[in-house]
């Protein structure tokens, strides 16, 4: 039988170099006079179109006594506009056979409609209404205030390990607004006045702080005309758009804390400060993390989960942010194992990264993984529209959707070792143990 003969691993065959697979994303982009940046990607394979607006506002643009505003707007901006009755926003989209939603990060807020392609104009009308004159009314504020509190209870307070990210970010930042997460403080939201909301809207939800990114089944020329029709008369914002200037000082001593909760399995988190996304060292750290936790054969999984059997899961991933972010090393500890034992085992792996270069084969594996990720990503219109908007918003270069892979492939084993030494520094990290409540009483 043929398959019995296929079981040997012929490394040499696998090692031979392959040509790089590519899928190029074509797009056109332009600015309107009011500062709105527009990106269009034409693709006729399915009769749908993704209409998206990315506002360059996230939780880091909030003032420390008004946290949660950007995320709150994500809810509020579905409440209607001067021409859209309260509650009708989603009705228009769903009645047209579409879907809509939005999400908020530390750095940006993203709104989208995914529509049948003959409803492109509807999507543009809706998004332009939202940008031009959204309705900021007390009834909407009051309802969404309760809904957001439920969202926080569901995703943070009542969810297993729901406070993990918030606790970790709080431990990592003292001065930079990344110290709070997008969900923000319910007390701040309760204390916000109508004037606070109007000011936030007029400051950030303006064409010169937004990218309109459209992907799908459309004719480029007609789409451009439609974009102009609905967006060119929206006035440019008049307020200064504040961006945080705080620089988190480098720490010289590790910070450790224990958080008690109702989750039974202990979790160990180490968070190391890293440079902002898009910088050369950021790519090197990302590759380093891929060595540590990309796939079942990665070092942390192989050593800590499979061989030593200390953890249910162990990995490291970069939390790439516009300002300097963090990389998390994370382990969910197996029952009956001491968290410190897992932490020591993680540290051993980090030490190896500092003292030894990765092998050629590991490097090739990384490159193959990165290549597959780039080829497999960008498979949906919504995804492409979002990526194009991301690259433009953060780096002013939407074409990174096609070229960012080169930045990864340029990373050498020396780079990886260098950033391991530089950023996986125990003196700069925050280490958190999440332990079961009863343990506190013992």
């Amino acid at each position, binding site marked *: 039988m043929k398959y019995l003969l296929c079981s040997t691993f012929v490394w040499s065959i*696998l090692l031979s170099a392959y040509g790089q697979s590519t899928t190029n994303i074509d797009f056109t982009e332009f600015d309107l006079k009011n500062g709105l940046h527009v990106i269009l990607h034409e693709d006729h394979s*399915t009769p749908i179109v993704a209409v998206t607006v990315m506002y360059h506002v996230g939780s880091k643009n909030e003032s420390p006594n008004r946290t949660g505003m950007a995320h709150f707007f994500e809810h509020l901006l579905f409440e209607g506009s001067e021409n859209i009755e309260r509650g009708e926003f*989603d009705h228009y989209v769903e009645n047209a056979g579409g879907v809509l939603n939005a999400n908020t990060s530390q750095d940006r807020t993203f709104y989208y409609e995914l529509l049948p392609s003959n409803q492109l104009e*509807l999507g543009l009308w809706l998004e332009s209404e939202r940008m031009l004159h959204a309705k900021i009314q007390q009834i909407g504020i009051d309802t969404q205030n309760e809904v957001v509190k439920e969202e926080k209870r569901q995703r943070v*307070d*009542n969810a297993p390990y729901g406070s993990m990210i918030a606790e970790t970010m709080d431990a990592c930042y003292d001065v930079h607004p990344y110290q709070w997460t997008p969900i923000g403080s319910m007390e701040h939201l309760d204390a916000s006045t109508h004037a606070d909301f109007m000011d936030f809207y007029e400051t950030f939800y303006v064409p010169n702080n937004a990218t309109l990114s459209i992907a799908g089944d459309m004719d480029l020329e007609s789409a451009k005309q439609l974009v102009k029709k609905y967006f060119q008369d929206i006035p440019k914002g008049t307020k200064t758009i504040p961006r945080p200037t705080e620089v988190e000082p480098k720490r010289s001593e590790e910070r450790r804390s224990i958080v008690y909760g109702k989750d039974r399995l202990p979790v160990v988190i180490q968070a190391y400060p890293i440079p902002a996304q898009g910088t050369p060292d950021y790519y090197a750290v990302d590759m380093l993390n891929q060595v540590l936790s990309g796939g079942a054969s990665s070092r942390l999984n192989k050593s800590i989960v499979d061989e030593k059997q200390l953890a*249910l899961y162990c990995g490291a991933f970069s939390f790439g942010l516009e300002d300097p972010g963090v990389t998390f090393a994370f382990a969910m500890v197996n029952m009956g194992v001491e968290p410190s034992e897992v932490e020591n085992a993680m540290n051993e792996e980090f030490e190896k990264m500092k003292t030894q270069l990765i092998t050629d*084969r590991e490097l*090739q594996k990384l490159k193959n993984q990165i290549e597959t990720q780039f080829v497999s990503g960008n498979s949906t219109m919504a995804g492409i529209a979002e990526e194009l908007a991301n690259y433009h918003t953060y780096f002013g270069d939407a074409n990174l959707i096609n070229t960012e892979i080169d930045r990864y492939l340029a990373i050498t084993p020396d780079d990886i070792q260098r950033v391991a030494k530089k950023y996986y520094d125990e003196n700069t990290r925050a280490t958190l143990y999440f332990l079961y409540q009863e343990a506190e009483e013992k």
Partner: protein
Amino acid sequence: MKIFHNIPLAILFATVSLSHTGFYSQVDRSQAPEPGPAPLIELGESKLLTLDNGLKLIVVENHKQPKISWTLSFEYAPIFEGNKAGMLDLFGEMMRSGTKNTSKAELDEAIDFLGASISASPKGIRGSGLTKHTNEILTLMSEILFEPSFPENELERLRTQALSGLVAAESSPSDISDVLTRSLNYGDIHPYGEVTTPESINTLAREDFVDFHNTYFHPNIATLVVVGDIDANTAYGKAKSFFGEWKRSDNIPYKRWNTPSRPKGNRVCFSPVDGAVQSVLKLTHTVMIPPGSKDAIAVSVMNSILGGGAFSGRLMQNLREDKAFTYGARSNISTDPLLGSFTAYADVRNEVTDSAVVEFLYEIRRMTSEPVDSASFAVTKNYMTGSFARSLENPNTAARFALNIQRYNLPSDYYLTYLEKLNAVTIEDVQRVAKNHLHPDQLHITCVGNKSVAESLTKFATSGTVAFFDAYGKPLIERSEAEDGVTAEMIIKGHYEALGGVKAISKLSGLRRTGSMEMGGGMNLSFTHTVSYKKNKRGARTSFAMSDQEVITNVVTDNGGYSSQMGPRIVTTDNELLSAQWEELDPLFLLHAGENGINSELLGVEEMNGSKYHVIHFTCCDDQERNDAINMRCYFDLSSKILSFTKSVTEGDDGPMSVTTKFNKYIDLGEGFKFPMEIVTVAGTQTMAVRIGSVSVNPEIDQALFNLD
């Protein structure tokens, strides 16, 4: 190569309005713009082919990206794992944990090196990666498929992880809620309802995995779905060279299952979680809507109006947008060839838990009691049309359609005409299917949350009480330890003493009891039970007759047994015989459990409906052949000392069944012994009550009654 169907598919993407206005008019912001002409929806082409060994192949060609996925999936009847629950959860990882010639670490490395992914499950194996790595991926996939070694040490690793995972799930409200609703809807003796526990994980052995692989992993129940950068000819060639020699099997088990019934009235079922700030609410019951059945599309329209994906769903609008009780309220209804379920759900803050249940019940009842308004109806249809069209962006959708067509025996144009069928659904259809399939008075109203909110839900329970459950969906029984010094033997002896004395009972040579069983509709079956306890002549015969014609007969002797239902005799299996001989042929069988190799354990004292019971658990046996032949709990009333009822799990025709037998009205008819005058048996969804009219002690017995020939 034979191509069965090959349909190029295009339909008009039409929603409400088709009128078209020019682009370049003056901006009129006061009105939503009109849509352009409806575009065509292309369904995507799939090809279905079959290999000589029965392996089916579905190919969806899509060259947009240089990647291919290969998904091999098996189709077999749902499997009940019993005391091995969790084997199937671990099976996929065990498959991926090493082959005859390759360790797990080597496999992981080889797969990661390609940037590929290969995963396995009890339902099959899937590999995907870049086109240029096709041969390497298929080589690895077929090695895992054909030569898994299921290493012992990897089982231990997975066991540790699974046990840790269960500990983590014990404090996760959403996990607890999933387990609770499954076990309530389907029961713990149904494949969809059984629950993995630390005990069941601990019983898993390597052989369980080997057996499963040998039994089910065969080409004649498999379909290989290939999606991506490859044409059908090439895919067929690859399938043939990698899977062509694979041997079929004609011994793949098929099993039917009892259909569990919905509760009589609404039940409120609560699983407490310390410190919870929200209640995870799910209102659920089973539904029988096989995929592709007549009502299926109307049911999905109905569910979508109530609480399907759209934001305009009634539950979302009511519980979130109007009341702000929750971040999201939805419902779903699953079509399943065996038995699906309807569930309406939301996470709500503690204080509004009961108010949220009121709104859920209101919205569910409203679906059945009034026609839906034409506006919601139109939005829903348009939304569903759009969802269907959007789903086609993913090339896997075309493959899924082809797979469903053959898996559920759907007409080949089922998806091509899906939008037509959707369009044909009327408002009357929606109310009709709501009435047929939603049962707002037969719900499990489940809540996982803070115990302090439980009492507020009492008003929704038909029984007037809230039932509590642990994190594994097991009833939380308030069980206390038995008094110091009390043993199982003392309790059993107490029972026999109360009936007439151990010594007197041991001297019985036989019994005859007659009575009747009501069949409903005024019909009665007469009941006769004759038993001989004489040494070497032991035998018992139970019969039910209608006008002197025996319709059900059951005979047990030391040499074997049979049963018949107006037909040929069915020989009693060894497992059935083990319990039948023990229970039937010895008047003091409870006392003699140990001598028959049956374990008895005193679990403690339970309180139910105002009475207290000593509970003794009888089990046999944990060897391979007689696995779980006996699993019975006996409840002895603390005040009368007499056996009040038993609960056991037995093997029925359609899988395991839980049986409760109550012994009521113990009376001494003048012979010096007390006998129960009423015996009520509840088995699955059936209840049988036998009323005893006469008992004779030590009667003349015709041994021919026990004849096995």
